[in-house]
């Protein structure tokens, strides 16, 4: 190749030492991230293919090199001078998409790719060419020079005059090339650390996450190749992460024309897809894989990687927060908040180690899902919150489905066990029938068999007992947890009330002590003593209510439904209801006395009332209304408020455990779930019906059966 070297030609980088440190050291933290950034640069230059070639990289020698070359649109002198050598004026920041016809969304938003080179090796020869010229533009950079200056500038010695980054000369020259060819190659030498096969393996796995699994269906697919001296990675094209062995797979799509989004819904023991209107975050093409323990082991063994949660891809490429490489997967940030959910670990909840998946968004349809500038997450706006909520909701539906499956498998175990017990009984009676008519030898064997069968039956019976016991214990633990959560809410309310009450009483007594007698203050003494009395009464009611909480769960008593609801409205919640100016109305055609556990029934209305209070927060003319009709064998109650109401999209999942739309008000998503489970244990039903108050509000219909 004929070279037209000209030593007179130099270019200087236009940035200072702090930018070099910040971008080079702090954003590009390791070699894999560096590769990531350089590959993204190729993607941004409309390349179809980028090849990473590792030459003599184990052991390290002077001949060690990494060459990253692509067939993108390349750079000319002006691009190099005004873009490559400058930071802060990243052309990538001005243009959101790459040139026609690819129109890819620019992925390397920070213009940090060139600093990634420094992480891979000390010396760089960049060769780049645009279509239509017959010259390659070549630039040589020795990062060692920059590191030296960096060191001297960071040391505390102000007097000496120093060189600046902008003074360092980078030689450039031109080489001949084919007029039709285009692309950029980065030849990196001065490599310090060797790349073992394991390192390349890691690079492969991480790079495979870069492109979406639907890459090849795209008009302009993007391919990454690796070449190295290792047999396995001699010349290999990186395939998108293959997902295999999953126990369950769910694919959710959308329909822009009809503005619908598919979501998962668990209902009547089945997990189905239903459609709802597309949310503000835009349509989400979603694929979720669930792995049970067996599947997880298989996956890990086969791919030698961990299952690592759900990731977001934009226009076919992974979004930055998910692309940051971390050395150990435990340090991976939980960007979607899957592991942060309240009560994580209880009630069979799924986390990032059980799920794999990808959410595909596009710049056009999801313009508000934007990576934050520090690359660690997404801009925390309403749309991203909705996306997170969407993901968690889908997982909750899967959790419900799995829980149901487990329950029915328990039922199968139980019936299997009692079936076995019956079989043994049958066997025994069969044996005793033939025993008497058999020979002494056979008789002896049969007696032995009978003995063993009896033992076996004992074991089976014990198993049935144990099984029932453990079921019972499980239920008790769940009940305990529910009452704890409800107790927690109550305790907070109670202590707030008690603080005020005690304050009044204590200072009232103190005032008497300080000032009595004093004829001038007679009027005050009177007011204070009245106040002390009424505050004491309030405290007494609160304590009584608290005591009921402390009562054991299994006590049944005669309960007047009317009295119970009235007590909640007029005493327990009186404070907060009057403070929030909420009017209450209770209409029961006749009173009904139920023989039941008081706390369970109180829980039902307790949760409905506090739910309504939250929903009424921003309304005017607030109302809660409860109407009951006593039928022959059931009580039908309608419980309504004119609060903010229930979103259409939430209607069928508001009874789900941990589903909450009031997290900021301390909602844990337990209230309505508890209401529903309490009602169901009584053999009743609760459902959302059309709201009684218009235009806004919510109405629940509750049916409680009873025996006369």
């Amino acid at each position: 190749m004929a070279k037209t070297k000209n030593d007179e030609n130099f270019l200087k980088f236009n940035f200072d030492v702090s930018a070099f440190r910040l971008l080079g050291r702090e954003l590009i933290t390791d070699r894999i991230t560096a590769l990531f950034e350089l590959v993204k640069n190729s993607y941004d230059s409309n390349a179809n293919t980028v090849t990473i070639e590792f030459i003599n990289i184990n052991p390290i020698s002077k001949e060690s090199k990494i060459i990253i070359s692509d067939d993108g649109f390349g750079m000319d002198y002006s691009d190099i001078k005004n873009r490559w050598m400058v930071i802060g004026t990243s052309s990538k920041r001005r243009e959101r998409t790459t040139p026609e016809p690819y129109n890819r969304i620019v992925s390397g938003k920070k213009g940090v790719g060139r600093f990634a080179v420094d992480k891979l090796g000390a010396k760089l020869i960049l060769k780049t060419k645009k279509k239509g010229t017959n010259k390659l533009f070549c630039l040589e950079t020795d990062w060692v020079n920059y590191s030296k200056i960096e060191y001297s500038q960071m040391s505390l010695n102000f007097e000496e005059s120093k060189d600046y980054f902008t003074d360092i000369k980078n030689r450039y020259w031109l080489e001949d090339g084919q007029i039709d060819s285009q692309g950029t190659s980065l030849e990196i030498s001065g490599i310090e650390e060797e790349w073992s096969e394991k390192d390349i393996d890691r690079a492969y796995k991480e790079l495979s996450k870069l492109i979406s699994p639907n890459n090849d269906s795209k008009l302009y697919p993007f391919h990454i190749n690796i070449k190295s001296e290792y047999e396995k990675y001699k010349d290999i094209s990186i395939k998108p992460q293959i997902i295999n062995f999953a126990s369950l797979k769910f694919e959710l799509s959308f329909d822009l024309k009809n503005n619908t989004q598919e979501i998962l819904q668990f209902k009547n023991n089945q997990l189905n897809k239903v459609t709802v209107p597309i949310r503000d975050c835009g349509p989400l093409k979603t694929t979720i894989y669930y792995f049970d323990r067996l599947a997880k082991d298989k996956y890990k063994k086969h791919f030698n990687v961990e299952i690592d949660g759900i990731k977001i891809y934009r226009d076919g490429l992974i979004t930055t927060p998910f692309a940051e490489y971390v050395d150990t997967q435990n340090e991976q940030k939980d960007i979607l908040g899957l592991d942060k959910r309240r009560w994580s670990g209880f009630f069979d909840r799924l986390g990032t180690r059980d799920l794999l998946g990808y959410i595909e968004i596009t710049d056009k349809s999801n313009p508000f899902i934007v990576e934050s500038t520090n690359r660690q997450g997404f801009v925390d706006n309403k749309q991203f919150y909705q996306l997170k909520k969407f993901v968690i909701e889908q997982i909750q539906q899967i959790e419900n489905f799995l829980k149901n499956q487990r329950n029915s498998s328990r039922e199968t175990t139980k019936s299997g066990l009692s079936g076995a017990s019956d079989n043994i009984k049958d066997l025994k009676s069969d044996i005793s029938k033939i025993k008497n008519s058999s020979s002494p030898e056979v008789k002896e064997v049969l007696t032995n068999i009978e003995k063993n069968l009896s033992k076996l039956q004992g074991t089976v019976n014990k198993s049935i007992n144990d099984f029932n016991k453990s079921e019972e214990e499980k239920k008790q633990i769940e009940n305990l947890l529910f009452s704890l959560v409800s107790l927690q809410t109550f305790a907070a309310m109670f202590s707030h009330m008690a603080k005020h009450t005690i304050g009044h009483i204590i200072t009232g007594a103190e005032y008497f002590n300080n000032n009595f007698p004093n004829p001038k203050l007679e009027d005050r003494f009177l007011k204070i003593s009245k106040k002390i009395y009424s505050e004491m009464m309030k405290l007494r009611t609160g304590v009584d209510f608290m005591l009921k909480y402390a009562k054991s769960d299994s006590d049944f008593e005669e309960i007047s439904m009317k009295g119970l609801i009235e007590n909640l409205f007029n005493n327990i919640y009186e404070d907060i209801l009057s403070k929030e100016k909420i009017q209450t109305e209770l209409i029961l055609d006749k009173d009904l006395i139920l023989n039941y556990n008081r706390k369970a029934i109180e829980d039902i209305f307790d949760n409905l009332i506090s739910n309504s209070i939250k929903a009424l927060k921003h309304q005017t003319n607030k109302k809660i209304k409860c109407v009951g009709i006593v039928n022959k064998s059931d009580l039908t109650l309608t419980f309504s408020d004119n609060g903010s109401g229930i979103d259409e999209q939430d209607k069928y999942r508001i009874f789900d455990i941990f589903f909450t739309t009031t997290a900021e008000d301390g909602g844990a998503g337990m209230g309505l779930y508890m209401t529903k489970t309490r009602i169901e244990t009584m053999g009743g039903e609760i459902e959302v019906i059309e709201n009684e108050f218009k235009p806004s509000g919510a109405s629940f219909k509750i049916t409680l059966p009873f025996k006369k």
Partner: protein
Amino acid sequence: MEVTFVVIDDTISIKEHPLLYTLEDKYKNVEFFLKPEDGLNFITSHLELNMIVLLDIQFSANDIENGHSILKKISEKSELIPVILWSGINETEESFSDFINNNAFGFISKDATIQEAFVLIDKALTFLKTNLDNIIEDWIIQKPEDKDIPVFFTANGLSLSLNQILYEIRNQTYLGKSFSKKLNQLTIHLLLNKLEKLND
């Protein structure tokens, strides 16, 4: 020194709280406001008064303001008013960092005794008494003849008397703040150059 207690609390029964009675017995002026906006209005339109504010934190959802936002607005208006948060809130659940940032004077729990509450109220009273504006006020009360003598001359030709300065300081204007700073500098200068002596 005359002081006005401004109590902002959305619970009507607080109006008859023995702590308020005690304050009234001792200091006469207690203003009670149910609506946070009304309390804030009173404060901003009476900056010439010596005020101590007792402020609830949680207000009903109908109120746009709450303890956090009222404190912020008072502290934006004047740094001379001690604002004491008086609340039944669970201290471990409330976020307190903005209270610190906005110079809340302290916190009294709703179940505190009068005696306990007065530990902080007395501190607030001392704070007021030692403030520059109150020292000027005391001076004027003792020597009314000094009231209108110009003592502060600005670069653009204004001259201000003690009485005018008092107004500027209490309203926390640029002039008021600038005078306070320069007066302190002057005092240090006088002391260092042995032109004045301070004795206790």
